[in-house]
């Protein structure tokens, strides 16, 4: 069991920071039923976060990490952007290499781990922003779907390049004024969830992070389907409250407002994916 790698060396225990000892003693390992309901009691796999106060992306991170069914054998691949500031705080194996190549790196990791450890389940999950997923990395993202890579891709869509100071992205809604779109964006928001379906993803969901339990369900379904069938995609609304002029306590209300319109909950599953989902429900894992 790989979670043994989080066990602290006895000889060093007195020198090891508390949060690392907590990871061994209080985090949930080896329990696929772990979920967001553990958040108040268990040690989280994310140690504080380096995002702005009240950033909905931090909620997304916490819910996703709490929902991974197999964290002790999960590799997380990320890309450049606000999200890349958070990765050093995550207790799992994470990779940042370049901006936009996350699905390519994840493909290589997944294929080699399947070859090196045929008897083990190793989940590979991509977490990246909309710039990385939809713009600069669109080629690598879609191509990994075409190739049917068994990875889960989660896009944190804040509809803007936030980390570089608020520039228009492909995910920005038409007409919105951002930097580099001083007359307002001239074309429609890229429907990435639809592209994911057309490119061959077996499970696709679009949602906000207003409901932690729903995020948990979606993440677990996406990971279980990716393990057995093929690529899965989750499109999460994580608004940049800073760039759209909201206060740090407005993130949840903003998410709830979008629940009723362009981020209304949408879910798609192929028959093969549905079979996995039904089976996991019967096993009590969903």
């Amino acid at each position, binding site marked *: 069991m790989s979670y043994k790698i989080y066990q602290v060396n006895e000889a060093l225990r007195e020198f090891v920071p508390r949060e690392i000892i907590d990871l061994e003693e209080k985090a949930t390992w080896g329990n696929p039923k772990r979920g967001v309901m553990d958040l108040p009691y268990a040690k989280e796999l994310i140690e504080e976060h380096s995002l702005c106060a009240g950033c909905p992306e931090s909620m997304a991170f916490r819910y996703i990490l709490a929902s991974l069914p197999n964290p002790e054998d999960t590799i997380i691949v990320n890309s450049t952007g606000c999200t890349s500031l958070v990765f*050093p705080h995550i207790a*799992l194996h994470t990779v940042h290499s370049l901006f936009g190549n996350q699905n390519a790196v994840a493909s290589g990791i997944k294929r080699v781990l399947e070859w090196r450890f045929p008897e083990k389940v190793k989940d590979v999950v991509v977490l990246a922003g909309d710039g990385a997923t939809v713009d600069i990395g669109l080629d690598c993202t879609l191509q990994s779907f075409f190739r049917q890579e068994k990875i889960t891709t989660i896009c944190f869509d804040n509809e803007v390049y936030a980390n570089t100071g608020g520039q228009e992205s492909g995910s920005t809604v038409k007409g919105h004024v951002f930097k580099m779109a001083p007359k307002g964006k001239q074309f429609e928001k890229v429907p990435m969830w639809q592209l994911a379906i057309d490119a061959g993803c077996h499970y696709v969901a679009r949602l906000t992070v207003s409901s932690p339990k729903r995020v948990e369900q979606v993440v677990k379904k996406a990971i279980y389907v990716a393990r057995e069938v093929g690529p899965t995609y989750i499109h999460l609304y994580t608004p940049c409250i800073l760039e759209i002029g909201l206060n740090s306590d407005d993130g949840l209300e903003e998410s709830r407002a979008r629940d009723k319109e362009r981020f209304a909950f949408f879910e798609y599953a192929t028959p093969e994916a549905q079979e996995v989902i039904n089976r996991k429900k019967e096993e009590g894992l969903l």
Partner: protein
Amino acid sequence: MTQVSTEKVIYNRAGQRVVSPNYLLFEAPRTKHFMTGSEAVKEAVKRSSVDASVSYPITPQSEAAHLIGELWVEGYVGVYFRGESEFGVMSEIAGCAMAGARCITTTSGPGTLRAMENFPMWAGTRIPVQLVLMARGINSPLSIQPDNLEVSFLLDTGCMIWYAENAQDLFDMIIAGFVVAEKPEVHVPLITVVDGFFVSHTREAVMLPPDDIALPPYDPYKAPMPVIDAEVPPGRFLRDPFVMKSNYISYATHASWQFEVRAAIERSRPYAKHYLRGLIEEFGDPEAEIVFVACGTAAAQSKEAVRLLEDEGIKAKVVKLKTIRPFPVEELVNATKNAKTIFVPEFNVVGWLEREVRRYLYKRSDADIIGTPRVAGGMTMPPEVIVKEVLKILGKEVKHVI
């Protein structure tokens, strides 16, 4: 009396007997084969216990990439697929290496430039990926012909760069390359360069050891960075994302990391010297005052020029550079101590090797350094052209040569 062997025979995943790098490279009996440079790549990969390769078509490296695919079908390579572009391929192979695989890939010319952002990332990630670069011209105008301008862009990526002269060199360098690049104190990527077409597509005699023996498999747990496989404690669990913050600790970290990558290349010297039988090769009159410093096909043509010059009664020698990074500076200084004139023949328009030679010989040689002849865009470099340049510069009559 029966002899009891105390040595345990180990087989790799392809069923080949695992032998030491020294045995494979220096001791195993060899037989003569007739093959192209691309086929020599296949033969080297076949004996290297390679775990993963990702490919993408571009002339002239495509055939080498196809042949690695055949090895995958035959079970000699663990993971193989075609990526979406060279940018994607170099990221995919990086993922393979991070997950603990011995990796090789190939590219050429425009593909190298398309992939460019990945090479410093490979070095910074300390993955010992081997890239076989079959040099060709870069655009524009479009050219698929041999030209090694692309190498000048790679000099400061933090990757080791070796340069093979012919198919035999390429075969031996690929095998030696894995061994050197994977040393824990080195553990940086290696770009093994060969001139496209001149070597990739030309058949020549290559001496090969048997194909039922192979290098010991890569042990990722000897890497200086944690393998991304969730079998070892994660290396990036930090209390602070210091590398991305605007403070002096983060600046110092980034700077020292880059120095460390270059230091790792320096640490490869003794290993490369052993497995390549020296970082340079000398050919011709050891005391000659006319010296050609060259790599790849330019070195091969210079050797022919040395023979022609001998007919003219002029003593000359070739110093063939096998490694460009690390640059064999002491070897070069030593090999050129009698030189009065150093010619640097090259297959590119900028003369990147001439710049390197000038830089490293600065104040260490009194010789005139002349960046000629220089051809590009697919032009060949007949030895007669080299001789003509030499005779012209020496102020001698040009009579016997074209």
